């Protein structure tokens, strides 16, 4: 393991994380709901209590434009082919529905609640993510 100091952004990431925590705090304290994006999407597909879910998703979609009013959007880089992205999307959809959560539902809200179930899920998806990147970057690539 070599630390990638050139791309390391501890302060921005910590501040961004605190905003994500604040968003989860607003949703649970005012609406009594978990800010888990896969769960919110799943509820939309199942047509459960759709209004607040739509509004949350719309907020998420327009957030880059609000960010852009204050400062330029950070550059992003994505070299994954569309086919791999599509397959990855299907895996993420199936996986998060089976395990009832993703990085936000289990990783942020679940760990904040001290849920052992969410800890197991978080360790599992982190491990699989490490393995997937290892295989793609170092075995195949």
């Amino acid at each position, binding site marked *: *393991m*070599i630390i*990638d100091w050139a791309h*390391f952004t501890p302060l*921005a*990431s*910590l*501040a*961004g*994380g605190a*905003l994500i*925590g*604040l*968003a*989860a*705090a607003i949703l*649970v*304290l*005012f*609406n*009594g*709901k978990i800010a888990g994006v*896969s769960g919110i999407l*799943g509820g939309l597909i199942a047509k459960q209590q759709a209004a607040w879910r739509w*509004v*949350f*998703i719309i907020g998420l*979609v327009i*957030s*880059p*434009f609000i*960010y852009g009013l204050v400062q330029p959007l*950070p*550059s*992003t880089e994505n070299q*994954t082919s*569309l086919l791999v992205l*599509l397959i990855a*999307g*299907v*895996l*993420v*959809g*199936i*996986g*998060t*529905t*089976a*395990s*009832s959560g993703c990085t*936000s539902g289990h990783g*942020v809200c679940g760990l904040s*609640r001290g849920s052992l179930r969410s800890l197991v899920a978080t360790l599992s998806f*982190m491990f*699989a*993510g*490490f*393995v997937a*990147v290892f295989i793609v970057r*170092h075995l195949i690539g």
Partner: protein
Amino acid sequence: MQLIFAGLSGIIFGLGLILSGMTNPAKVKGFLDITGLWDPSLAFVMGGAILVGVFAFALAKKRGQTILGESISLPDDKQIDRKLVIGALIFGVGWGLAGYCPGPAIASLLSAGLQPVIFTLGMLAGIGLYKIFQSKQT
């Protein structure tokens, strides 16, 4: 009122994802590449979020109802079973392949070209497929 707070939460959530680097798939992969050139930044994202979240969920639990006086619905599922672990592993593979998880993909839908759109379409198909599979089992 609930809709206003849901929208506010979505916006702040998205701003946090952008500021933290989560909407950049290359950065996410840099975090997941622990055996290569490793960028530990995203551990700070989760740290920052949980630091705030712990207080929020403790307060929510103590109050027992929302500030607007409604009931709070927290998950009560405590079961740690194969479905949880295998599901999370499948999710992790997709996350590592794409560098997108659900939140950042949605936050990038209109601002980062075709790639997050294709990923999101796949994700919606996956959610739908699993729900069909689930309803046939019960």
